[in-house]
């Protein structure tokens, strides 16, 4: 009998692995999935998203306050303390012109954030409208709009952004415009696909058969169902565009001196990397953390908005 028990015990091993399976965050089951409350509960249970939100909140506040709290002006050169390694005086050291890197990094956060956010808002508004028109009207309107957007997709996205930079010139506003236009097709396609998908769903057919008016179908069924993928795309787009803004500035096509944009700071100091690596490493870490924050928040929203996506 004992022998038998031992064997019973042993063969559990094969299937025991399953226990390690990830279990869902514990959210009060009375909250309806899809409601704003549920989304918030889910996102705020996500450690990554909380980290992202805390970091972004911190960096925004510090960036806005940096002219008042930092000992040094971000553009003040100090030839007495050029290329100073991080110390009590200069926490992140100084660059080749003796400018305080801490002040520059904090002040410069605004460029990545502003360009990332505004260019995304631009592409989202234009793209969603175009996609909605194409998806809703279909036919010739749809074909024309989509063929036009196909042209955008004949290029790798960074090349397209570079082309727009070449046309518009450099600067924060131009950079927003270039990245904003580059992002339009993504949103337009997403919106169009959503509208087409939802239009063919059975519950829309059901709504039509009970004579639900068109505007009501759009307002009550199509829009709420198309919103979640758009929100997720917005979060992802902000991080993508923030990164692209830094890349363009690094190439000299985006934000220019003396504005301390992080990519531009890297480009300006990259020749000193051998002896003063902190000049390059520090702004890079800020780019990584900012982009990471947006990505984590985007991931959390995706999980919260689309319960099917997980597992």
């Amino acid at each position: 009998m004992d022998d038998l028990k031992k064997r019973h015990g042993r063969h559990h091993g094969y299937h025991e692995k399953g226990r390690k399976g990830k279990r869902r965050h514990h959210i009060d089951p009375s909250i309806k999935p899809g409601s704003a409350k549920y989304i918030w509960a889910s996102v705020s249970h996500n450690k990554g998203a909380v980290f992202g939100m805390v970091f972004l909140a911190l960096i925004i506040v510090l960036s806005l306050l940096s002219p008042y709290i930092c000992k040094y002006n971000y553009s003040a050169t100090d030839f007495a303390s050029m290329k100073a390694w991080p110390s009590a005086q200069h926490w992140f050291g100084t660059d080749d012109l003796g400018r305080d890197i801490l002040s520059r990094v904090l002040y410069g956060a605004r460029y990545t954030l502003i360009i990332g956010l505004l260019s995304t808002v631009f592409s989202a508004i234009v793209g969603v409208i175009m996609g909605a028109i194409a998806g809703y009207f279909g036919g010739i309107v749809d074909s024309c709009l989509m063929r036009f957007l196909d042209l955008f997709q004949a290029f790798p996205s960074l090349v397209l952004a570079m082309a727009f930079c070449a046309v518009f010139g450099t600067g924060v506003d131009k950079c927003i415009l270039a990245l904003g236009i580059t992002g339009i097709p993504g949103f337009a396609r997403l919106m169009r696909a959503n509208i087409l998908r939802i239009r063919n769903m059975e519950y829309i057919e059901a709504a039509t058969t009970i004579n639900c008016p068109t505007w009501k179908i759009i307002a009550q069924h199509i829009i709420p169902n198309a919103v979640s993928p758009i929100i997720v795309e917005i979060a992802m787009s902000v991080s993508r565009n923030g990164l692209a803004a830094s890349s363009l500035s690094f190439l000299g096509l985006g934000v220019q001196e003396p504005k301390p944009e992080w990519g531009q700071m890297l480009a300006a100091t990259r020749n000193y990397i051998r002896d003063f690596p902190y000049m390059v490493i520090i702004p890079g870490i800020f780019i990584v953390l900012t982009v990471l924050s947006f990505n984590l928040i985007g991931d959390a929203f995706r999980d919260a908005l689309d319960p099917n996506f997980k597992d």
Partner: protein
Amino acid sequence: MAESKEKFFELRNLTVKYHSGSSIIHAVNDVSLDLNAGETLGLVGETGAGKTTIAKSILRILSENSVESIDGEILFEGRRILDMEDKEMQAIRGKSISMIFQDPMTALNPVKTVLSQIAEGYKLHHNCTKAEANKRAIEMLEMVGIGEDRAEEYPHQFSGGMKQRVVIALALACSPRLLLADEPTTALDVTIQAQVLDLIRDLRNKLGTAMILITHDLGVVAEVCDKVAVIYAGRIIEKGTLEDIYDHPTHPYTCGLFAALPDMDKDVDRLSPIEGLPPDPSVIRDHCDFLERCPYACEKCKKFDNKMIEMTEGHFVRCWKANEEV
């Protein structure tokens, strides 16, 4: 402990639990069954009763990520399946025990030809050349009524009924000694159902394969099976020979199933369904599972210890009233 006579196939106290979110689902509870070589057992129950879980446990192909635990014993020709090493298990899968899946639409690999999908298993278990395996696969396809000319086609080129034939050919390619047929006709049109059923029956007779036929269709069971087990909420509530169950249904649930069937001889306006819904699978009850839906429920049922009662030899019922009647 009295050693029982070695059976061809036996389930002893099989219990399977899944985890879902933070709760445990008791999918299969304490199921014991046995089967002689060449016999066919019908496993009858409604959706969600745990029939497919039983079949998949036998082949050990349940998704590891969702299974909490499997307890009990599965004995095939005296060998403990749950204790086997992966290698041993692989040698049994497809060769000695094989399975026909419920949904032919998704059971076949879309990027491989049907021929290669059938030949693959045969080649593996017989250690033969590819040509021999292909020859066997074509034989099997012809046996299920699909011509050689279609062997090199892909699953998307077949209709649902044809796909189910391919699935059957695949399952029978190695002449298994035990076939698990999981609702082989449910996904098909009524007209095709009869054909596929005939096919399975003919093949079984020709090859002498034992079979566990999972279904919720009592008509199918009556046509094909030697033995029947009725399963409710993961438990067997009645089992016996075909005659035991069809001529002397005893458990109120089994009686309810028969009462819910349309009867050609009687002219009734409405069928009599079993009222209510199956119980919550995440709860283990200390009384009869059928209590809430049972028309004969009484106070004593709440104290019923859920033991099987043998009415006549081999006819077991999980209801204390069965004993009263005897």
